[in-house]
Every structure is written in structure tokens, then in C-alpha cells.
């Protein structure tokens, strides 16, 4: 499956790009993070502490065990600090 992955704030800075397109068979967000972390250190570093990460699937907040089944866009970012 082809996924568009977006990164924001310090996650973007650690990964080094704001977005990328990847091919994956990951079933869940957690699987995806593991797969990426195994690929390169910069991912492992950015995703090392899940409690400091939030995820959105197709622009809705989701959980790490959410299925990626029909997802097109996954975004990873730190807890939000608007307002």
C-alpha cells in the first residue's frame, strides 16, 4: 500500500523532511513506526518515545493501534500546543 507520511514540529526536524511517500504492508500505526525505525536511525530516534508522539490518519486523530487499512495519509507529531 502507498502511504503519504507527514511530520510536524520536532518530529519533522528529526526526520529531516516534512513529508514522504512510502510503500508498506504495516497493519497498524505501531507496525509502521517499527518498520521505519528498523530502516534508519533517524526514525528510531524520532519514534523512541511513543508517549511524546501523536498520530493522525487521514487528518483525524488516531491511536497507535489504529489499523492503516484504507489510510492514505498518516501524520506524526508531538502533542499539540495551539491557542
Amino acid at each position, binding site marked *: 500500500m502507498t502511504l503519504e507520511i507527514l511530520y510536524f*514540529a520536532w518530529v519533522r526536524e528529526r526526520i529531516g523532511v516534512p513529508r514522504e511517500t512510502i510503500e508498506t504492508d504495516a497493519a497498524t500505526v505501531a507496525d509502521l513506526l517499527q518498520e521505519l525505525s528498523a530502516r534508519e536511525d533517524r526514525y528510531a530516534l524520532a519514534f523512541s518515545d511513543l508517549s511524546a508522539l501523536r498520530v493522525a490518519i487521514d487528518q*483525524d*486523530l488516531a491511536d497507535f493501534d489504529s489499523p492503516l487499512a484504507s489510510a492514505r495519509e498518516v*501524520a506524526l507529531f508531538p502533542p*499539540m*500546543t495551539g491557542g
Partner: protein
Amino acid sequence: MDIRVQSAPFDYGQECAKFAQNAANSGAIVTFCGIVRDHDDGTLTSMDIEHYPGMTERALGRIADDANRRWSLNQCLIIHRYGPLRPGDQIMMVATASRHRSDAFAAAEFLMDYLKSRAPFWKKEVTRTGSEWVAAKDVDEDALKRW
């Protein structure tokens, strides 16, 4: 329901005036304005706000929908800026109009609480010596529990 995500400044006073004029039969209007606060030692040169275009509008729309379901609102406005801001700049505002002040106050606080922790904005503070992403505060996450 009026939701605007923009890099341009907005005119808080003028927005308040317009909002009140359009809500003249509401009885109660509450507005909130957030302003970039300098550090106590005056070292903040810039506050950069990043957001997630597309999701931001969607998240704010849902938060406003939730507020409308919970309280009897005649009108509600959210404006949030992104990009580099300076100390003293207005970051964002919300406004609510209702027949009763309790609804207008509760809805405005609800909008603020959710907007703080559930809308995809991230703040980075830039000083002369470096820059740092603002950490989310437990108190902001805790604030959601009261609703």
C-alpha cells in the same frame, strides 16, 4: 460558525465589534484573545506557529460543532494564525454568542481547551541564543477532563 486559519494579522477590536453587531439579539457575548507573551527577561524574538493545513480547519470545525451541540449558541468564531509572530502579536481569538452568559462562557472555555490540545498547532519559541518547541502542559490536557 466562522473559522479562519491565516498567517495575516486580525483586528481583535474590529472582530469583537462585528461579532457583537451580528449577535445583537443574543444577550451575552464572550471573547478570548491570546497574545504572544515575551519571556520575563525580554529575550523572545519570535514565536513560530506551525500547523497541519487541512487537518487544522477540520479539527477546528469539529470542536466548534461539539460546542454547538453542547450549548445553545447563536454564533461562534475562531481565528488562529500561523507563521512567525512577535511578542505582543495576537495569536488567536474565539468568540461566542448566546442568550445566556453561562452558555457563552462555557462554550468559549471549551473551545479554548480543545483548541489548545486537539487542533494541530505547534509553537516554537525563538530567542537570540536558540529555539525550542513549546512543550504541551499537563494542565492543558487535564483541562479537557472537565467537559
